[in-house]
């Protein structure tokens, strides 16, 4: 465990060293939020209503979505692992007494933690300011549980894309395409409840909704605990299934690995 703790701390230090990325991400995600805010404001000013969402509800949805995106966009696991396999860098870890997936998880957690230190106070401030009447510690706790679940699912998907390099040689396209699919079906771009029924049905069969949509529903505090519990269980089953699949893909991939790039 100690070795992963050191990797985690190193990742944390690296993230704090390159502070420019933090401020830049606040700027560009803030800009993106402003554009979305204007889109919805202009619709509601014109008398339109987006489904069951009030204007403030929709705005809050995007604040939460941006917060989640700020957290998970710190590391591109698929790209990093893909590069390591393609350039042969993975060989160092194959002979070391270390789990490859745990090492990358520790790195990724370091990045997330650094981002949490910066963005969580801002998020909590907004949360308390906007949802003062509905601010509830139990909801907050369940929100962070679902956030962790969503983060883990996103991580394993990225990991799977990365280790696909064993089979495809170069996964830049797969990584890009997967990111777009995640972006859409996680509810990052538009709440899944607003999508046409066809897309909603597809989204309900996929694990991406646990990344943004479910945490958002939880913090909006208008879903029963029974339903949340059911959703979290399904998410957990997805996570376990993805982890097993990743293990099989990794094992099969290692048999094909030829140390190219060494």
């Amino acid at each position, binding site marked *: 465990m100690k070795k992963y703790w050191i990797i985690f701390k190193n990742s944390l230090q690296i993230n704090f060293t390159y502070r420019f990325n933090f401020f*830049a*991400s606040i700027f560009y995600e803030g800009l993106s939020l402003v554009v979305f805010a*204007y*889109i919805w404001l202009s619709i509601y000013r014109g008398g339109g209503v987006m489904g069951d969402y009030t204007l403030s509800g929709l705005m809050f949805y995007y604040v939460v979505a941006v917060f989640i995106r700020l957290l998970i966009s710190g590391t591109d696991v698929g790209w990093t692992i893909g590069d390591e396999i393609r350039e042969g860098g993975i060989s160092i870890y194959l002979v070391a007494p270390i789990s490859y997936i745990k090492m990358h998880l520790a790195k990724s957690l370091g990045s997330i933690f650094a981002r949490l230190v910066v963005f969580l106070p801002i998020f909590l401030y907004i949360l308390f300011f906007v949802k003062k009447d509905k601010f509830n510690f139990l909801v907050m706790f369940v929100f962070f549980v679902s956030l962790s679940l969503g983060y883990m699912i996103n991580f394993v998907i990225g990991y799977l894309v990365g280790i696909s390099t064993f089979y495809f040689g170069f996964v830049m*396209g*797969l990584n890009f395409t997967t*990111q777009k699919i995640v972006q859409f079906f996680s509810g990052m771009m538009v709440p899944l409840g607003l999508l046409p029924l066809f897309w909603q049905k597809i989204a309900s069969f996929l694990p991406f909704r646990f990344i943004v949509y479910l945490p958002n529903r939880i913090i909006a505090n208008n879903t029963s605990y029974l339903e949340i519990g059911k959703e979290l269980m399904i998410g957990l089953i997805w996570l376990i299934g993805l982890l097993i699949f990743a293990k099989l893909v990794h094992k099969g991939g290692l048999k094909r690995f030829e140390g190219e790039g060494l």
Partner: protein
Amino acid sequence: MSRYFNIWLRQLKNGLSIRMIHPINFFVMCIGVFLEMSITFIFLQVIFKFVNNFSGWSHSEAMIVVASYMIIEGLMWTTVSMLGGLSRNVRTGFLDVLLVKPINTQFIVSVWSSDPEDSVRLITAISILFFNVPNLGLSNFQLVINGLLYVVLMVDAYFIVYSIFLMVKSINFWTVQGWSIHMIGEKIVQSSMYPVDIFFHKIVRVVFSTIIPLAFIATIPAKILIHGPRLDLAIYSILIALIFFYVSHKFFLFGLKRYESASS
């Protein structure tokens, strides 16, 4: 001039050759680009599921704005890779090699890399345009006149976006780090994807028409195509493109003086 054109063509060919080393990856990239575009169109679909007009724009008109933005975006990726060559060469120190070449540095840095898979953007956006223009009810004569002016404004828009990216990416001379800088440029330019009429506060609209001329990237070309020629807007567009191109060139040269050849 023909030497520059040949170099640019050679770089485009190189870009395609690099991508085709992994043909499956190239085709998956094309699918990814198409998906990215589709998401935006579905987003518009969602909006028009609940409202009939979007800040005064009908569905077809809004689609023309988005398609216009995507044409510019597609051109920027396909021809100069959103100036990815600039940040990469600054970060790796390879700019040293380019500086001593007997060619304009800004030019070679700009055309250094290209993303041929983004031609999918161009094809899809032009198709969307062709599907939606007939819904505008324009006569053939109007279509030719509006269309010609639209092309002129789109050329201006290309240079405006190029200039914005050149200025933003020149910040790399100070920061060296590339990805965040790219995201800043991308998000600024992406703000022009939807009609600028959504920015109903006058001050915001003035900023997006002058300081960061987002209005001239997609909304104004689309307006000209839909509603007919406006000489004042056409002149403004050309002037803004020229001013931005000049200022960005000066800023690039200013940044270049700060280049410290890190990592070389």
